[in-house]
Structures are given as C-alpha cells and as structure tokens.
C-alpha cells in the first residue's frame, strides 16, 4: 500500500485520525528518534522527545492544516522538544551518541570510535545539521526550514562540519 501524501496525512492528523498518527510514525519515527538521540544525548530523553512531538501534534489539531512542509514541521518540533528535554536534565545538548546495539567488526571498531569522537567535538550547530541531514535524511531545504536559516547557510554549515570531521580524523 502506498503511503498517503503529506496533504492527506496532514488532513488526517488535523482530523484526529489515529491511523494518520500511526502512518506518521511509520514514515518518520525512526529518523526522529535518531536525530533526538543526537540532540538530547540519551536514548531515554530521545524516547520522551519523540513522544512529546506526537502529543504536541494531537494538541495542535486544526492548526496543522496551515502546515506546508510536514517533515520540516515535525523535525522542528522534535528539535525544540529534544533541546527542552536535554535542558531539563541539565545536560549539554548534542552530547556524543550512546553506543549502538550493533557491534562493528574489530578492525573497524577504532575507526567508528574515532568518528564518534570527532562528531562529538563539533560545535553544537554543526552536529545538529549533521544529525538532521545524515541521521534524519532531511534535504538542505528541509534542514533550513527546521533550523530557521537559509538553505545556503544550512549547506555551508554542513560542509564546514564535514571538513572539521575530516581534519579531526586526520589528526
């Protein structure tokens, strides 16, 4: 079955249709979670942040009909929720990601650790754009709308982040 287009999904969400919320989770749930982990810094807070987003969507109700880009709207909502969660826990947002359940091969383990460390050393704004673009799968236009910056700013911020990662991995 093909998933409903955004406009149809928005209509379902605004009409408080439970199936629309399930479809939204199936479409963006995992990506939302990955980005939330990157921003909030822990699995537990990411769990809660994603839940906060869905509860906020239910409460928004009719107002959702004014949303033009559902994906950017949802990720912007997630970003606020994850930052709020991180602040409530008095933790620095965008901490290094917790270890995955997947264990990389031994020969690549060092590389994976170095990559995570390099990622953790990036400034918060750059880690955020990497999380949105790589982990969330957002285009630069969607990242820009989520972050409230221009698409050029989002793209150049991402490029600086990747350059810094390259330098950190070399050093």
């Amino acid at each position, binding site marked *: 079955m093909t998933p409903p287009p955004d406009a149809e999904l928005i209509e379902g969400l605004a009409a*408080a249709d*439970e199936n629309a*919320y*399930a479809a939204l*989770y*199936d479409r963006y*749930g*995992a990506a939302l*979670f*990955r980005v939330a*982990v990157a921003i909030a810094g822990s*699995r537990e807070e*990411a*769990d809660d942040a*994603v*839940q906060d987003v*869905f*509860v906020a969507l*239910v*409460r928004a*109700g009719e107002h959702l009909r004014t949303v033009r880009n559902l994906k950017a709207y949802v990720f912007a909502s997630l970003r606020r929720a994850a930052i709020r969660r991180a602040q409530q826990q008095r933790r620095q947002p965008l901490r290094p*990601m*917790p*270890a*995955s*359940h*997947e*264990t*990389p091969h031994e020969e690549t383990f060092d*590389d*994976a650790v170095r*990559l*995570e460390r390099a*990622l953790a050393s990036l400034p918060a704004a750059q880690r955020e754009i*990497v999380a949105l*673009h*790589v*982990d969330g*799968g957002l*285009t*630069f236009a969607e990242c820009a709308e989520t972050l409230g910056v221009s698409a050029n700013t989002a*793209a150049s911020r*991402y*490029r600086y982040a*990747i*350059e810094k*990662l*390259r330098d950190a*991995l070399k050093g």
Partner: protein
Amino acid sequence: MEPSPLPPDLVEIEARLSARPRVEPRGDHRDRVMAAVRRELAAGRTPWWQQKETWHFAAVAAAAVLFVWLNVAMRAANPPGWRLRGPGNGVAVAQTAARIHELVPSLPEREARRQAVVLHAGARLVPAPQPAGRGAGALLLHELKEGAPWVTQ
C-alpha cells in the same frame, strides 16, 4: 539523502557517517508513542464537563468567590469603629465629634467621629528626635533651628 556538491575526500567522510552504526528505537517505542497519542486523542474527545481540569478550575473559582463574599459580609456586619486606645478616650472623642457635628451639621456623624479621632491622635503626638542615620528625616532634624516649632502632623 540529496546529492551534495562535496569534494571526494568530504564525500568519503559523509559516506562513513551514513554507514556508521546508529541507535535505533526499541521495538516497543511505536506502541508507547501510539498509546500517548490515544490518551491525548481521548482527552480531546472528553466533553468539558467530564474533564478534571474543568472541575479543578470550578473549585478554585468557587473558593475565590466564597472568600470575597465572606469578606464583604463580615465588613457589612461589623463596620470598623473609630476609636483610640487609652482610658477616657472614648468619651473625649465622642464629645469632640458632637462638637464638630454642631459646627458642621452637614457632616455625617461617622465622618465627624473620624475627624475627632484624627484630632485626638494628632494632639497626642510627642515630638521625638529621629533615630541616628543619614536619611532625609535625620537631615531635616539637623537643619531645624533651635526654637523652631515642631510640626506634629
């Protein structure tokens, strides 16, 4: 992910980022989120008279109204009397009030009594030096010339 105009060395970093193991939501995460959605949807469908918040607000509003009504009722039942402490003051104030009423018959009795209390209170003021300090009061006292009359009101 859209193709990015990155040079090859950066593309390689980007590919490593995309391929790295990432934390995925637990199996029950979807159920947990959907349970929260169902709760919120149910709360939205509950009529206002069945919502806890409505009754909480009504209880607070009723308590506030009762409090104000009690205050107004007590005030109406027990109007504050104007009186000075000390033996014999009641008689003296009553005499002064009667005299004021004679002089100004148009003045209500209650106001005449209030004026009498004010007069007696002013008459009983004792001139006293200001306590030590560098405030405006201390400065005024310092500037008073010897023999200047005390202002007692």
